[in-house]
């Protein structure tokens, strides 16, 4: 489990994250929602520990994240960022194998078990046939699945994803989130699409101006009022057998 307790992050005199508290029980999936600039990515960085909090505590299991070494954190928490750009020309196997780094010394070579885990995680994300390909030649959806396979190769209990469905077409969005759910890790992901969030997350947390605006089960959180307040959009919400469905009508003046 991972949790944040009254966590804030001040950048350039402005509170990007303002007193957010959130507990993600083991095995559950939380979607972070909110418009651009609402603090989703910033909050994920604090949860990942790649930026120090200005105040408040992030807890990973029973430990204060800040008290753990980077390596200990990486052994149980994996992150997939929004942008994954490299100047080098790795193969897909090179990229997925990065996930094994936290589990061995920097000077030791990959073991048989490392290769096994890489193969297994690649298969899990359906990229095993791409392992010999150059990363640069992959489509956006394939790259995203490769990055998640890399994250799974860290054998994490917690998984943080920043807009994993960005730039993906509809089919790849659904596939990707299905695979992520199937991986069964404690997951926090920032999402733009309210319908995807309602379908694939157990709980939604809506951030607005760095603060938690609403949190809870999708049916409790997604209301016409919330979409108007947070996104400035008039919407209809209908309950279908497959879950909630939000239909956007127009931008409010």
């Amino acid at each position, binding site marked *: 489990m991972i949790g944040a307790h009254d966590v804030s992050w001040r950048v350039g005199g402005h509170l990007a994250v303002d007193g957010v508290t959130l507990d993600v029980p083991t095995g559950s999936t939380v979607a972070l929602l909110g418009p651009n600039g609402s603090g989703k990515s910033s909050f994920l960085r604090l949860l990942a520990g790649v930026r120090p909090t200005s105040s408040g505590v992030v807890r990973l299991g029973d430990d204060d994240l800040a008290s753990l070494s980077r390596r200990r954190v990486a052994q149980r928490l994996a992150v997939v960022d929004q942008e*994954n750009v490299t100047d080098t020309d790795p193969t897909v196997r090179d990229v997925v194998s990065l996930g094994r780094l936290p589990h061995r010394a920097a000077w030791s070579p990959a073991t048989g078990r490392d290769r096994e885990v890489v193969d297994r995680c690649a298969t899990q994300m359906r990229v095993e046939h791409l392992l010999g390909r150059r990363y640069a030649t992959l489509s956006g959806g394939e790259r995203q699945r490769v990055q998640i396979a890399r994250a799974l190769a860290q054998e994490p209990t917690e998984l943080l994803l920043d807009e994993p469905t960005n730039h993906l077409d509809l089919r790849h969005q659904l596939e990707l989130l299905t695979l992520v759910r199937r991986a069964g890790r404690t997951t926090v992901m920032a999402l733009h699409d309210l319908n995807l969030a309602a379908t694939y997350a157990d709980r939604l947390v809506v951030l607005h101006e760095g603060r938690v605006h609403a949190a809870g089960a999708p049916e409790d959180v997604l209301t016409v009022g919330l979409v108007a307040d947070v996104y400035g959009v008039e919407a209809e919400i209908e309950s279908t057998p497959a879950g909630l469905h939000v239909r956007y009508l127009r931008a409010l003046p």
Partner: protein
Amino acid sequence: MAVLDRVLRTPERGPEAPRRARAASLAVLGPVGLVVLVLSIAASTAIGAADLGPRDVLSVVLERLGGPETGLSTLRERIILDLRLPRAVLAAACGAGLALCGVVLQSLLRNPLADPFVLGVSSGASTGAVLVVVVGIGAGTIGLATGAFLGALVAFSLVLLLGLLTGGTTDRMILAGVASTQLFAALTSFIVFTLADAEQTRGVLFWLLGSLGAATWNEVLVCGLVVLVGMALCWASAGTLDAFMFGQDAAASLGVPVQRVRLVLLVTTALVTAVIVSVSGAIGFVGLVLPHVARALVGVGHRLVVPTAALLGAIFLVWVEVASRTVIAPQELPIGVATALVGVPAFVVVLVRSRRRTS
């Protein structure tokens, strides 16, 4: 130019087989590379005005190690032992060190155009050398090499300070390096133009362009040891360097204490480069181009790239050193000029390739 071809061609790899072959190749690559390096040094020692064969070189070395008498004249022995061999070995050490530093800086700064001099080390060294040679700072107690080394450290410290003050991101580091390079280059030119006589100018200029002509065994020893230690440290950090593939945040989330690692590796490369520059002047392009050649040959994993680049750099510079003293013999070409003549076309290739990748 088979090597250039390999850099130019975007390698199309088959599914899995080539990777396996490569993974198994460290045990083969190392010994083969070392043998080629030793043979290159022996061959380069045999080439030159005095007519000597590789066999003579070998017998002299063997005699030194307790083998039988060579039967060569003392003069010929001295040519081999005091003139040619230290040059060749120093070339190997410098080539290995420069390529090594190039690998590390390109990875840490995430810039395919980074080279060992990107953080201002060489221009600082030139200012230090000029201060000693032309202005006479140190009053004869410190030599050109010491002056250059101190200058390099001052310039690098300035870059580090500027980089950290402006936020410590890789872009800021590179900008600080550019600024510092310009500043120290201007200082050097200023001193040379206002104070140096023709003789001094020529001496400094020759040194600036790189020269192994005055190599001594002392320099070989210092430079060789520093390069070996630097290489051990970088090789031991291979996994850490790999972790920077997708940038600093990605490295941090893969368990790397980014700030500390970056500082240690930047200081290491700066020290190695400063020592190399102080004995050989600024030999360009080895550190820029050979890391790319190494990656084109063995892929991106630093466990292979680090030793491969170092071996390639060593072999490359040994042969460039031969070329520099034979092409226009009996005149000598500054070795930096020779590496640049090979390096500039390769540099263009790297530029084109990196552009193709981002577009």
